[in-house]
């Protein structure tokens, strides 16, 4: 059974999340080097992390007549919701917050990126940033409803919105096994709310970086780091929602949580480089015409199973 850790453990959540995030960023740097045909080494692995001090001392760019308040608020929102979303993820047998409505909380914190990216795009008073922010809103309208139905599927399967209960309900069979549609839609949505990989459209190269276009120095670090924190929180949440949380034979629960989280992260980091970027206007039709009916049918399955009980 998952127990609630003491209040101070809330302070550990950002540290654990940061450790997983740094692992993911390093793996991503290694994959980039392999694609470029460069020899793999420790230096290559830490290349992205070595950017951090450079960004910390770098000049902050200012634009003509920016809305500085909204701009800074938007940039700060992204890492803040990554950490807040991670608060409810059980790790092994403990969780920082054993909230009764953990799934809804996670969903709400992830939706905060809508406001964050729109403000970050708007505030810079730059056309590329503005289009990037609007692109994320369009993308949000596409990915959000299938994601919600995927979350509803697992919550219905466990008959609880508490993430610890959802993990406990998979003691015998993972939800990923009998709710594969919800699992795949969830993983796609992790890319979408962290605007990475196939969903990097709001910050893509065809837009000179989109929401990132006018960000430099510490602002850029905060937004780039924030999207990776969100990405890692999403990958970590897949473990209790679909992969049975800390349940597993032989090893202790915390070890299973670590192994599974690293596994999901590895899959997502690898997939990030294998999948082409999707335009929001293409994904929105796929989401509304194909994915929403599919995920509603998927949510029907656990509902029928519940009725049989």
């Amino acid at each position: 059974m998952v127990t609630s850790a003491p209040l101070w453990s809330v302070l550990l959540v950002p540290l654990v999340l940061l450790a997983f995030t740094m692992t993911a960023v390093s793996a991503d740097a290694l994959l980039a080097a392999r694609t470029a045909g460069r020899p793999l080494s420790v230096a290559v692995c830490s290349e992205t992390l070595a950017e951090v001090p450079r960004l910390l001392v770098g000049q902050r760019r200012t634009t003509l007549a920016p809305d500085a308040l909204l701009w800074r608020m938007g940039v700060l929102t992204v890492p803040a919701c990554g950490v807040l979303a991670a608060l409810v993820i059980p790790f092994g047998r403990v969780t920082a917050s054993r909230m009764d409505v953990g799934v809804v909380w996670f969903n709400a914190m992830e939706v905060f990126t809508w406001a964050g990216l729109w403000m970050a795009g708007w505030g810079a008073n730059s056309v590329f940033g503005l289009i990037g922010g609007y692109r994320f809103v369009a993308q949000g309208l596409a990915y959000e409803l299938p994601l919600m139905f995927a979350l509803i599927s697992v919550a219905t399967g466990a008959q609880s919105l508490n993430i610890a209960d959802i993990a406990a309900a998979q003691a015998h069979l993972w939800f990923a096994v009998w709710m594969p549609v919800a699992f795949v839609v969830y993983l796609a949505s992790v890319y979408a709310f962290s605007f990475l990989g196939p969903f990097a459209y709001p910050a893509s190269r065809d837009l000179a970086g989109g929401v990132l276009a006018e960000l430099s120095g510490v602002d850029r670090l905060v937004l780039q780091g924030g999207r990776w924190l969100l990405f890692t929180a999403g990958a970590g949440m897949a473990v209790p929602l679909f992969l049975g949380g800390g349940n597993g034979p032989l090893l202790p629960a915390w070890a299973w949580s670590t192994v599974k989280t690293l596994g999901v992260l590895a899959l997502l980091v690898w997939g990030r480089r294998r999948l082409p970027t999707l335009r929001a206007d293409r994904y929105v039709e796929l989401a509304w015409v194909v994915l929403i009916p599919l995920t509603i049918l998927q949510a029907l399955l656990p509902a029928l199973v519940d009725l049989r009980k």
Partner: protein
Amino acid sequence: MFWVLALLAAGGGFLVFRFDSMARATIALLVSFVATGGLLVVLGLGYLGVVVILMMIMEMIIMAVFMVAYMMNPAGLMPMAMYHNKPASLTISITTFVLLGGGIFLVRWPHRDSAPPADPTLQLGMALMGPQMLTMMTLGFALFATIVATVVLATHRGRYDRFGDDLLHRPAADPVPGGVGR
């Protein structure tokens, strides 16, 4: 906690009318709604509070897009105001606030003589919806049908525009090509 959220909720609502930028006004309203959601959580209605926060973020960002598109001066480069007829609107809003706020102190609230229920959200839902569930379900379907009908009536493009006069043209001639290739 209650007072911080209450001040944010009322202050955010007030600031909506102080800002001269549509974007800032929308975000101020969002802050007000999120604080209201937080107040619901403080009251022990965790589910309702978090759902209010979730829905209000999505709603306010979509509203920001439309308001920026429709307002005369979205960017705040020229002075704009969120109100018309300042003296009258100020009088009406202050009177309403005082009336509603005063009502809270004047009403004789019932006295609780038992412990709060284990799940206040369930109790509230039963109290609000319990006997009227059938009405609400019918209303939901009627509203949804209205939305679909309005969109169908409002769109200027029908199937003959998409598939040609003989309805045989494939793929459809859409101004924005979708991802499914219908």
